[in-house]
């Protein structure tokens, strides 16, 4: 098939592009990078096979136009059709637009897209894929094998080793002690089997346990029966034991009751009645005693509480005193207030006098003349003084500022001087500013000169080396002047003569008859002529060679001459540079054999010295300025001090005037004009306080007179009551009132006590009568029971109580005995046994029985425990899942192992198929492919190499024909590997497509690592194949078109003419440039 037309509506960089009239032959499309070569390759492939099922972009058009396009195709049988790409799908139509039933793959000779991509569509990436990997022998072999097998970059060995790894992971591949998956499973299965064996037969165990349980249950039942019997006997014994003691007690009680028979008839409530009477008597007597005591107490109190009648008669005077007491409180408070006020005024007056003058008293206060206060004289004084003082303060302030500045400047001056002296000490006296600057300049020049000197020396070395090389080349060239060997001139002549002599007999008339004899002279002539021609050719080649050698020698000599001149100039320049270096070394103070480090260190030292000199100069000028400033400040200070002394004199005269004025007006001499206003204020206040004090003193005297009178009258009253005491006035008044009230209260109390005494006497009489009656009743009771006194009465009563108690006990014991014996009848039955029973024997027998029961119970408990354990085990067994779990686990593991084994079989089969296929391929298929590929490689490499399959290990090797040497893949260059690879792929395409629709081949920049001659070889191969099928060749090198043109023109005599179309590609535009 061939593509006759390409129409791209929109595909990546291409938009509305059309390329028609494509020939069946070679189509070369040249373009720079990003011109659209790879996009066009993708379009061709997509238009043939579509993009269904692929991820990634669909090369949406970058410009205008909808995505897609079509290819017009002419099949080998002449049928035309269109492959239309729409979205990701391809539709195949007839030229008239009707859909074709066949799928694209059917039309393309059954070659699917994968196969097409691997064999017919080869790009740069296919060659360079894996370039970053080590191109070892195996890799390269695999690559060539894969190419010849149609698999692209596939490593069959990797597939086989991958399968082997997986297989050996499952089961042991070799005898290595590696643990495989199957081994692990075997171990697990073994463990499960072991566990199952350990578990044993649970059913048998269950049956055995059930039997054991039954036997144990029988034993338990028998034991329970024995225990029951022993317990019954024990109960009987215990009953007898229980009966003995109460029975004997009953006997004893009955004996005692016999002795107390007399008290049986004591009246049932006799003692209670007697006791009631006795209690009442006791209560009555106690009340009588109480009443007598109350009567005595009341008489005593009445006597104690009698009132004083004298006091009760002075009621009027007591009421008068009560009124005074009420007023006295107010008057005392007023007196205290007045006194405190007076004290306050005295204090203030003292303070005022102190403030006015220390020497003044109250008389001076009255005497002082303060009438001039309003004359304004004091104000004038004050004004003058304030003006003078203000001026003095201002001058003092200025003087202080000057002092401060002077001190600061002086300190600065001093510090600057010290700094300068230290700098001058450090500085080297010899190095002045100019010398230092000059040294620095020399140092810079030294750097440049030394670099130039080194360059010059390097150039000298180079020139010398070049000169030596040239002289060697010249010598070699002269040695090669010996001309190649040529046939000696005598050889043709000798040949002619010898052949003439040798064939003389065959000449006509030479004696021998031979059918071709007339040709022998001609043959001899031709041979000698051929030798002559050969010699002439050799001579011409020798002359050419000699001429070339001559020219080459002359050029060597010229070059040597120019080199020598250059060398002389360089030596001269080196000398000049040396003298300049010496001069600058001297200037900069550095030795001639300095290094670049010395230069740097010296430069740093000089720069530092230069900066220190600059600092000293600055410090000196600063010191001079500070000295001048100090002098100015001293002069200003002196003038201000003078002005201040004048001002102080003026102030002194002003103060002497003020003292005279004070004396004139009887005012204190220490009074200052500033305090005059406050002085006046104090005088006025003090005079006001003095008048108030006199008024308060009068009022205090009045109140003191009233209190003295009251004190005397109250004292007289108390004396009249016989109660003279040292008391304050107020307490005395209170005492008078209190005493009177007390006497009043006593009088009332005596009245009430007298009433109470009467009532007590009455009650006492009644109690005495009741006592008499009670005594009579008690006498009657004694007579009734036949006793004489209370003691006998109580004794009889005690006996009666004892009898009743014993009677009760006897009844209880009888009931208890009947209870223990079961019934009264039973008791009667056992009574004889009880009479003769020995208790110690009974107890011994009982003890033995108890022991037996405990032993049996213990045994029973153990048996119960065993039974419980057995039941527990049986229950555990009935819910035991271990057997289920283990058998299920075993089954799961077995299944896993079977699955793994199946997987192993599958992989082992796959591996075996692959190995077999490799064997067949290498035996049958590969030689054909390699043979064709060898042919192509020979053409590409100009016959230098041929490709072979090694018979030994079927690896692929190259033969270098000229030397008859073999090249293993390890010695191939990358370019050679590319060429071999392309040759194999083209060969495979040829063989694979032999009997089918010939598909076009698409090659993209596969020749980038080919040199020119190999590119020509490739062009030769392509033209050869293009005679049979269409080839699209994309190249980023426009030179390849020229190569093809050249190859085409050289091969005009080609048996089948090949159509070639040359196109250029630029920014998605395809332009045919010729054919």
């Amino acid at each position, binding site marked *: 098939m061939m593509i006759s037309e390409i129409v791209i509506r929109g595909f990546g960089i291409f938009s509305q592009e059309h390329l028609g009239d494509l020939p069946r032959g070679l189509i070369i499309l040249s373009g720079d990078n990003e011109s659209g070569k790879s996009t066009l390759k993708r379009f061709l492939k997509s238009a043939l096979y579509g993009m269904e099922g692929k991820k990634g972009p669909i090369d949406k058009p970058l410009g205008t136009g909808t995505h897609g396009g079509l290819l017009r195709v002419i099949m080998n049988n002449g049928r035309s059709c269109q492959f239309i790409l729409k979205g990701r799908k391809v539709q195949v139509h007839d030229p008239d637009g009707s859909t074709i039933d066949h799928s694209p793959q059917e039309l393309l000779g059954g070659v699917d897209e*994968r*196969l097409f991509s691997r064999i017919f569509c080869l790009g740069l990436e296919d060659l360079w894929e894996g370039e970053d990997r080590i191109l070892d022998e195996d890799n390269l072999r695999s690559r060539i094998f894969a190419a010849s097998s149609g698999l692209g970059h596939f490593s069959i060995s990797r597939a086989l080793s991958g399968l082997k790894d997986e297989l050996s992971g499952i089961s042991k591949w070799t005898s290595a002690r590696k643990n495989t998956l199957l081994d692990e499973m075997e171990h697990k299965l073994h463990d499960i089997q072991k566990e199952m064996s350990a578990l044993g037969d649970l059913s048998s165990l*269950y049956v055995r346990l059930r039997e054991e349980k039954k036997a144990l249950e029988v034993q338990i039942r028998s034991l329970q029966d024995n225990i029951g019997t022993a317990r019954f006997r024990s109960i009987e014994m215990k009953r007898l034991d229980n009966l003995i003691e109460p029975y004997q007690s009953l006997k004893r009680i009955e004996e005692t009751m016999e002795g107390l028979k007399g008290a049986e008839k004591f009246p049932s409530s006799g003692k209670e009645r007697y006791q009631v009477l006795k209690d009442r008597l006791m209560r009555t007597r106690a009340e009588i005693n109480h009443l007598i005591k109350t009567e005595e107490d009341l008489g005593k109190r009445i006597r104690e509480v009698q009132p004083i009648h004298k006091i009760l008669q002075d009621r009027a005077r007591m009421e008068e005193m009560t009124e005074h007491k009420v007023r006295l409180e107010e008057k005392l408070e007023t007196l205290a207030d007045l006194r405190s006020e007076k004290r306050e005024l005295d204090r203030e007056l003292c303070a005022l006098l102190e403030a006015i003058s220390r020497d003044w008293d109250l008389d001076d206060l009255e005497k002082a003349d303060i009438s001039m206060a309003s004359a304004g004289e004091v104000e004038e004084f004050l004004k003058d003084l304030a003006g003078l003082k203000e001026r003095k303060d201002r001058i003092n302030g200025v003087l202080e500022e000057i002092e401060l500045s002077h001190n600061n400047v002086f300190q600065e001056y001093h510090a600057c001087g010290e700094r300068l002296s230290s700098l001058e000490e450090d500085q080297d006296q010899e190095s002045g500013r100019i010398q230092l600057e000059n040294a620095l300049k020399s140092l810079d020049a030294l750097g440049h000169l030394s670099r130039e000197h080194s360059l010059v020396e390097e150039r000298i070395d180079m020139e010398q080396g070049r000169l030596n090389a040239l002289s060697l080349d010249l010598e070699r060239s002269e040695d090669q002047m010996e001309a190649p060997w040529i046939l000696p001139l005598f050889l043709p002549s000798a040949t002619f003569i010898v052949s003439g002599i040798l064939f003389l007999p065959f000449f006509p008339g030479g004696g021998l008859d031979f059918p071709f004899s007339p040709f022998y002279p001609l043959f001899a002539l031709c041979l000698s002529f051929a030798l002559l021609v050969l010699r002439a050719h050799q001579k011409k080649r020798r002359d050419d060679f000699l001429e070339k050698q001559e020219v080459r020698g002359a050029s060597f000599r010229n070059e040597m001459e120019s080199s020598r001149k250059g060398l002389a100039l360089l030596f001269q320049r080196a000398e000049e540079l040396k003298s300049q270096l010496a001069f600058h070394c001297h200037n900069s103070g550095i030795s001639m054999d300095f290094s670049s480090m010395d230069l740097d260190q010296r430069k740093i030292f000089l720069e530092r010295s230069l900066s220190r000199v600059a600092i000293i100069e600055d410090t000196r000028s600063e010191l001079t300025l500070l000295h001048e400033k100090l002098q100015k400040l001293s002069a200003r200070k002196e003038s201000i001090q003078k002005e201040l002394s004048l001002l102080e004199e003026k102030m002194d005269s002003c103060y002497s005037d003020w003292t005279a004025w004070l004396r004139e007006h009887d005012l204190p001499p220490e009074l200052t004009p500033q305090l005059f206003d406050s002085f006046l204020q104090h005088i006025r206040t003090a005079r006001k306080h003095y008048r108030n004090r006199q008024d308060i003193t009068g009022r205090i005297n009045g109140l003191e007179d009233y209190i003295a009178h009251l004190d005397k009258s109250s004292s007289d009253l108390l004396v009249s009551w016989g109660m003279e005491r040292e008391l304050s006035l107020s307490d005395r008044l209170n005492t008078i009132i209190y005493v009177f009230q007390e006497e009043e209260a006593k009088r009332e109390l005596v009245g009430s006590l007298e009433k109470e005494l009467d009532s007590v006497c009455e009650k006492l009489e009644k109690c005495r009568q009741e006592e008499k009656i009670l005594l009579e009743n008690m006498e009657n009771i004694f007579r009734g029971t036949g006793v004489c006194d209370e003691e006998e009465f109580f004794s009889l009563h005690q006996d009666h109580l004892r009898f009743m108690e014993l009677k009760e006990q006897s009844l209880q014991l009888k009931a208890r005995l009947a209870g223990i014996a079961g019934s009264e009848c039973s008791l009667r039955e056992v009574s004889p046994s009880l009479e003769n029973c020995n208790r110690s024997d009974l107890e011994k027998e009982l003890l033995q029985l108890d022991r037996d029961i405990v032993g049996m119970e213990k045994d029973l408990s153990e048996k119960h425990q065993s039974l419980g354990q057995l039941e527990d085990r049986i229950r555990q067994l*009935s819910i035991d899942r271990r057997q*289920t779990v283990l058998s299920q686990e075993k089954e799961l593991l077995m299944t*896993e192992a079977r699955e793994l084994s*199946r997987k192993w079989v599958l992989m082992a*089969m796959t591996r075996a198929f692959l190995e*077999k296929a490799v064997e067949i391929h290498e035996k049958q298929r590969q030689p*054909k492919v390699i043979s064709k590929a060898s042919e192509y490689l020979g053409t590409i490499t100009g016959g230098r190499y041929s490709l072979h399959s090694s018979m030994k290990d079927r690896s692929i090797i190259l033969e270098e024909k000229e030397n008859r040497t073999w090249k293993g893949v390890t010695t191939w260059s990358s370019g050679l590997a590319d060429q071999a690879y392309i040759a194999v792929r083209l060969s495979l395409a040829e063989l694979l497509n032999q009997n089918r629709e010939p598909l076009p081949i698409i090659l993209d920049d596969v020749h980038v690592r080919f040199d020119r001659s190999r590119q020509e070889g490739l062009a030769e191969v392509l033209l050869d194949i293009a005679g049979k099928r269409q080839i699209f060749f994309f190249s980023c090198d426009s030179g390849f078109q020229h190569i093809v043109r050249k190859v085409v023109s050289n091969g005009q005599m080609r048996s089948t003419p090949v159509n070639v179309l040359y196109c250029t590609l630029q920014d998605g535009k395809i332009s045919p440039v010729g054919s």
Partner: protein
Amino acid sequence: MAFLETRPFRFIHCGDLHLDSPFTGLGHTDSDIKKILYDASFQAFEKVLDYGLEEKASFVLIAGDIYDSLTRSLRAQLNFRDLVRKAGKEGLSIYVVHGNHDPLDSWTARVSFPDNLFRFPDRLSSVTHYEDGSPLAEIWGISYARKETSENLARRFSGIPRERDIFRIGLLHCNVGGVSTLHQNYAPCSLGDLIDGAVDYWALGHVHEMNILHDSSPMVVYPGNIQGRHMKEQGEKGCFLVSVDSGRVDGMEFLPTSEVLWMEEQVSLSGNEEIADIHDLVGAACDRIRSLARGRLSIARLSLTGTSDLQSFLNNPLFLDQLVQTFRDRERNRLDLVWIESIRNRTRGPSDLSELKDSDSFLSDFLRVAHQARHDPGLVETFLRETPGFNHIRLFLEKGDFPDYRELVDDAEKLGLSRLLEEHQE
């Protein structure tokens, strides 16, 4: 002889309980699933008895293989006894014959059973089932004395008198006419042996597939087993509820009992080109299985079919393993989970391999080798014997592990192609 006037009654017919026998064909499984599996057979039998009580069945017939004597599972015996006892308290009678998996010699002196269980001896015997003092049915049966019973036990039933005045049931564990090649041929008999007998209903056991061999009088019925235990026992398993009126079978209803369902589902990948599509389709298949399982655990085997361009993935066992694991993880916390046993690739690639086979490439050589092996099993055996480690592997392989040799070669061919082409996927 005229039939006695008996009132209508119903009974349950089941067989092949195989209590506490392990599930086979499962690889690595979660512990939660294992717990379900441990109890599945017991729960299935409990369901049988529950059906009997719910449907007011007069009795339950068990046609052999209550458990696997080989495992000698005490748990199976005790649980069986407890369930029977529980049913007995509700008044349900159970009639049992023993089969090849639980012959009489394996039951001796094991566990004592309650009175509502009647076990037929190893000679033909009959028992009449009474209800409220009236006879309802006459049950004839015979148990296996030992496992290897090759005698045609059905022939012994020919001695039963033909005259009868009551509904008659034959309870037997046998292989009728080699109906199943999957099961060993114990007590073989022909359908004719059964039809000719004087029995109205043949309650059979031994074959695990539900099958009604004769649907008119006498009915010949295999109910199958009550719980599938491997992939060959797929779908619903259960028992029959048989209604009898006027001395003949009036109706039959199949009652499902499986606690765990084994399912196989095909998933067509045609027209789906993305890996994500495979996930969606497998997810949908799981949902379909779930809806069938109605809340029960189901163990599923999925076969991917149709045409797919993703052969390199599908032929890679690792990819399928990962797919299985993904869905196991996704299903893990569901109560109605679908546990994927395996996913198998049965898809075809879009390109025609026969075209490739005729080409002159290495692939064609490979395909030709596979083709040759497909027709020559000896060749494969030779290949395998030459592979180191085969002797170890064969210890784990069983006869039925490769039921279809051609399928195995197909798989190897696919695996080989995927390994050859996997590095070139675009």
